[in-house]
């Protein structure tokens, strides 16, 4: 078991012929060859990339391959369209790696997708990894190993850091998922926490948050009310000054809201063990 993706996933890559798309397709094919069934680039239908067929539209790809998941590598200005196309073609899991999508585009996407059966992860996220089974996105496969810890994070390399630390301590993972740090994202902490709570294989959960917004506080409320499994957390940006954006489009403390301190307080109050250094996480889970 795992969440969202496993060895039965049938994934297509939107933007498969682009530089990023092609490179990461190769990585994904190497990691779990059977799970990658094709790709889409308009006008390149009929070509092959890393042994996988390319289609002109998502619908054509779905018809030919029975794809049920898609990962998006197209440039920012085409990304919203790629998401709409995947939704309209009935793709159940859409993982958008693309960064720099304008907030107004994402507000429309968010509204459109919520009344459909599709789930969007991201945008501007590393995707997800179910060790030994499926890799959707850009998370390096070698950092993870199968096991019983679920990892959910707003971040990219910081996630790798924590997953790598878990693996080094012999604590394998069910699924590692980066939900992205943008202001508007398709899947939030609470959604994933619920999935981990429901997943029989996941025994413990790691949450990696950062300054900005109140998603971590909502997560704390959810954990307090609904979670039976132990949760450890790290919140990045304790030392960040107010009013300054720290890289991520969402990482900014505005009007005193969204500080690391208040998030840590809420999480601790919900019984979560919060690390002051990401390398402490494995110890907190023991």
């Amino acid at each position, binding site marked *: 078991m795992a969440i969202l993706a496993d060895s039965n996933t049938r994934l297509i890559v939107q933007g498969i012929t682009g530089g990023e798309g092609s490179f990461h397709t190769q990585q994904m094919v190497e990691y779990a060859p059977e799970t990658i069934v094709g790709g889409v680039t308009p006008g390149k239908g009929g070509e092959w990339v890393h042994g996988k067929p390319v289609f002109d539209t998502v619908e054509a790809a779905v018809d030919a391959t029975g794809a049920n998941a898609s990962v998006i590598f197209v440039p920012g200005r085409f990304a919203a369209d790629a998401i709409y196309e995947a939704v309209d073609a009935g793709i159940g899991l859409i993982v958008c790696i693309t960064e720099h999508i304008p907030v*107004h585009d994402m507000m429309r996407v968010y509204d459109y997708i919520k009344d459909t059966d599709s789930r969007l992860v991201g945008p501007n996220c590393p995707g997800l990894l179910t060790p030994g089974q499926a890799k959707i996105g850009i998370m390096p496969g070698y950092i993870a190993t199968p096991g019983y810890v679920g990892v959910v994070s707003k971040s990219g390399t910081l996630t790798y850091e924590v997953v790598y630390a878990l693996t080094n301590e012999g604590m394998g993972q069910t699924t590692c998922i980066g939900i992205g740090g943008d202001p508007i994202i398709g899947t939030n902490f609470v959604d994933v926490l619920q999935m981990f709570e429901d997943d029989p294989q996941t025994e413990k959960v790691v949450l990696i948050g950062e300054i900005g917004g109140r998603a971590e506080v909502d997560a704390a409320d959810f954990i307090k009310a609904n979670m039976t499994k132990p949760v450890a957390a790290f919140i990045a940006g304790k030392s960040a000054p107010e009013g300054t954006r720290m890289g991520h489009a969402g990482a900014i403390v505005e009007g005193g809201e969204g500080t690391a301190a208040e998030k840590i307080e809420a999480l601790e109050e919900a019984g979560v063990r919060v690390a002051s250094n990401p390398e402490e996480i494995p110890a907190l889970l023991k």
Partner: protein
Amino acid sequence: MNLHEYQSKLRFAEYGIPILRGKTATTPDAAYEIANELGGTVVVKAQVLVGGRGKAGGVKLAKSADEAKQHAEAILGMNIKGLTVRRVLIDPAADIAKEIYLGITNDRAAGRAVMMASSEGGVEIEVVARENPQALIRVHIDPFLGLRDYQARTLAIGIGLPREHWRAFGKIAHSLYECYVGNDALLAEINPLVITGDNELLALDGKMSIDDNALDRHPDIAEMRDTDAEAAAETEARKAGLSYVKLDGQIGCMVNGAGLAMATMDITKLYGGDEVGPANFLDIGGGAKAETVAAALRIILADPNVKSVLFNIFGGITRGDEVARGILQALDEVKTDVPMVIRLVGTNAEEGRAIIDSANIANLSSAASLTEAAKKAVELAKGAM
């Protein structure tokens, strides 16, 4: 990207929001001319991308053009919270009967835009939200439908606006919404929106913040970027495609990934305590190409406070040996004596560390873990102070 008051108000006016037709000046003489042309009492307002300019003396009433010139003289060049005032706006003085607030921004939790109004204009909205939350009326806006008439009405009713003003208020609310969407704004705020003695509604002060990710579809706005308002290093970093924020500490941090960069800052602070801490936030993005590392290093070392540098690179897909070679190449370009610690993770990380170590650079050492690297960088910084 934040717009100045005068830029925001000009955008508002394009969408039909009534504003005062003042002009900006960069010299006291120009301020005199404008005040003279406007006649009567004017307000001289510092155009600076930071709050609290009023308290800092950056907003002054002038009864004559001479007085306007004097105020402009005092305000131009003034330093407000670290930013130098280079431009003033000269507006006619308004006859204010009542001040209200009207703003729109995106609500992350709802995934939608939220328009907010308050009968307490002129006050920072965060203060209202904290101290008098029931005075802040909110409506969430469907991105496909846009603001509906009934929502504007709900705001007007909620803030107790007399019925005679509903129509004018509704028009302004619609215009503000269109302005927010049309400019890919993250925030568009009229504060205060005033009712004048003549019962007219007027946007007296305005603020807009534009989504950097959407600037390529608004080249006119991108051109308005006020690089004076940025630290020179931030401008340079932006041009190099880096995300950089200067902080007050002594340890220069070079990291790939925003979350990891923040975490690295936090850990130097954790181990540095009150004595030393992070000198910056810096995300070099994916991979670690030599030219990117070199540009980042130049920016970090330009900060005279920096006493040590900490590289924290999680290679991801990239191989550790490649990263190590990229860093050595960059160090070859940018010579420095500042002590540096490098922590490398990724495929072939050990090979990478071996390459660093065998390069035998006197002021460069490697560390296996983030904790070890941070502790080392702290010690090195303390040693150099």
